[in-house]
């Protein structure tokens, strides 16, 4: 029997690859370094291109028939998938088709097969947290740095005996036939882009931070609020291409930030009360069918200013005075806003460079690069090594899923 397939990263791309391989009878090992699967998509409330809410997917726990299930519920139940949470990849040796990979598996403080999410431990100690109602595995997580007496009590009183505070990290070496890199992206923290003052004022945030604020399951119930005082934000300004298309940071266009900025602008103007949104841009790149978002946002009164920000002046009442050069009018405009949102570049996940080096594969602007850029096999990045989703560069969910399926198809063909 063939060795299993190793999939690194349990975001949308990794989960799709794992479940579809598993459903085809192939054993997979899915390694995720976080405490919950789902990756970046977990923090998004509504998703383009269909504007469906990401959560309904999880609400449907029963897999068959779900139109856009992210396969989360399958991960712990599908016998062909072995999920390694809190885990990282160590040394990789051996030849293609028989790689030997060292896994550093994090301590399993809470057994997801036993936890019923009853909430008892959450009341006993701050060390326990429920990351999100639709987290997968469906279990609370434990942070050992916050250990206290309450945690010990919870360990004793947990009705299902799911807690083991003495759990230790382990190491194991696995033999795998193929490696699928699905390590996704990271939203750049634009602390170094001086002109935007990110990190120096609480009301200057990134799009991913805004996504969390306007999420209905978030603290404010989806009301856009200012981090400085929790008061509703009435005037929001976004600025595009922060760190992207900039030779000082990332030369490429992050491809989807125009779309998600407009998605957010539309949510704010159409579904929230009385919010005014301005977008400062160089080009609006809503490729393909996404032009609809651009037209819709103009219709709903989103204000577009072609130009760049010249000056940000914080006021005592936590508002920001922002002067923008409008290159179409050749005039400077001065706005007063509550929230300033940066559409920051999407960069490779931390550790991607090391993975590329260890595997001896190509890199494209820091992301995983395909073996032959002239070929149409964009998911083939080495001999028995594949990549899918945002690990290959900024991508939306549908594209990530399509690439994951391409990987599955390649692996199935190779095993015929």
């Amino acid at each position, binding site marked *: 029997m063939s060795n299993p397939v190793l999939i690194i990263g349990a975001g949308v791309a990794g989960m799709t690859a794992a479940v579809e391989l598993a459903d085809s009878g192939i054993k997979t090992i899915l390694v995720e370094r976080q405490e919950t699967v789902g990756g970046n998509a977990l923090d998004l409330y509504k998703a383009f291109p269909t504007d469906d809410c990401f959560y309904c997917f999880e609400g449907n726990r029963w897999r068959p028939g779900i139109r856009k299930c992210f396969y989360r519920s399958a991960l712990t139940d599908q016998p062909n998938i072995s999920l390694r949470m809190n885990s990282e990849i160590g040394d990789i040796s051996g030849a293609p088709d028989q790689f030997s990979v060292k896994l550093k598996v994090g301590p399993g403080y809470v057994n997801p097969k036993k936890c019923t999410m009853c909430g008892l431990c959450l009341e006993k100690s701050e060390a326990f947290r429920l990351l999100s109602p639709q987290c997968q595995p469906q279990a609370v997580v434990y942070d050992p740095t916050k250990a206290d007496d309450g945690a010990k009590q919870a360990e004793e009183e947990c009705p299902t005996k799911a807690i083991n505070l003495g759990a230790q990290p382990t190491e194991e070496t696995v033999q795998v036939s193929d490696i699928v890199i699905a390590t996704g992206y990271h939203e750049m923290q634009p602390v170094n882009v001086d002109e935007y*003052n990110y990190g*120096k*004022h609480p009301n200057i945030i990134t799009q991913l931070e805004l996504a969390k604020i306007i999420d209905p399951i978030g603290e404010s119930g989806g009301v856009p609020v200012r981090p400085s005082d929790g008061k509703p934000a009435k005037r929001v300004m976004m600025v595009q291409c922060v760190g992207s298309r900039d030779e000082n940071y990332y030369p490429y266009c992050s491809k989807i930030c125009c779309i998600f900025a407009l998605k957010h602008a539309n949510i704010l103007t159409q579904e929230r009360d009385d919010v005014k949104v301005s977008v400062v841009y160089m080009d*609006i790149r809503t490729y393909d069918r996404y032009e609809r978002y*651009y*037209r819709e946002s*103009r*219709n709903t*009164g989103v*204000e*577009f200013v*072609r130009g760049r920000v*010249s*000056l*940000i*002046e*914080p*006021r*005592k009442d936590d508002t920001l*005075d922002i*002067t923008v050069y*409008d290159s*179409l*009018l050749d*005039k*400077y*405009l*001065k*706005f*007063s806003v509550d929230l300033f949102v940066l559409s920051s570049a999407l960069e490779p996940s931390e550790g991607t460079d090391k993975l590329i080096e260890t595997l001896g594969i190509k890199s494209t602007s820091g992301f995983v690069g395909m073996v032959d850029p002239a070929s149409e096999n964009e998911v083939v990045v080495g001999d028995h090594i594949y990549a899918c989703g945002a690990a290959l560069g900024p991508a939306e969910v549908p594209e990530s899923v399509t690439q994951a399926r391409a990987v599955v198809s390649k692996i199935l063909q190779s095993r015929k």
Partner: protein
Amino acid sequence: MAETEESTGPPATLIDPIEMSKLDTKFREEIHSMPNGEELSACFACSTCTAACPIANIWKYKPHQLIRMILLGMRDEVLSSDEIWLCLTCFQCQERCPQKVRVTDIFFDCKNLAAEEGKVPPNIVGLGKELLEKGQLYTVTADWEREDMGLEPDVPGLSVDGLRNILKETRTSKLVDGDK
């Protein structure tokens, strides 16, 4: 990044920006609600209209900028601009606009709004006056041309009295009188 007091001293730079809070945010709605304004907000500032315009080269504000100023709420600037009156109403901009913005018609709307506020350039008022008094804008003067062609000196059947009477009751007359 130092905090600024509510009353700032001299600006830190030589930039003297337009205060957005002082603009008329309702202007956009005003134009939008007029018969030609439906597609106003669809404008994405591509400047096709300006590229099409045979005369904008000599204008301070180009057609795409005027539309942009309407969207931003620069009511006074737009309604007192010369450009809306200099427009040849050739409709080239409107024909070509990829977002179906009725540029020329919107400038008509602007002219109507400006006129209501008495913001009509004197030469335009002069034309109105001419029309009221003579019942026509261009009176036949070069009689020799008619003569050369063997025509009688007066245009037969031309009667401007009726028109003059009608015009007296129109807003054109109020505009001209208001100017007196």
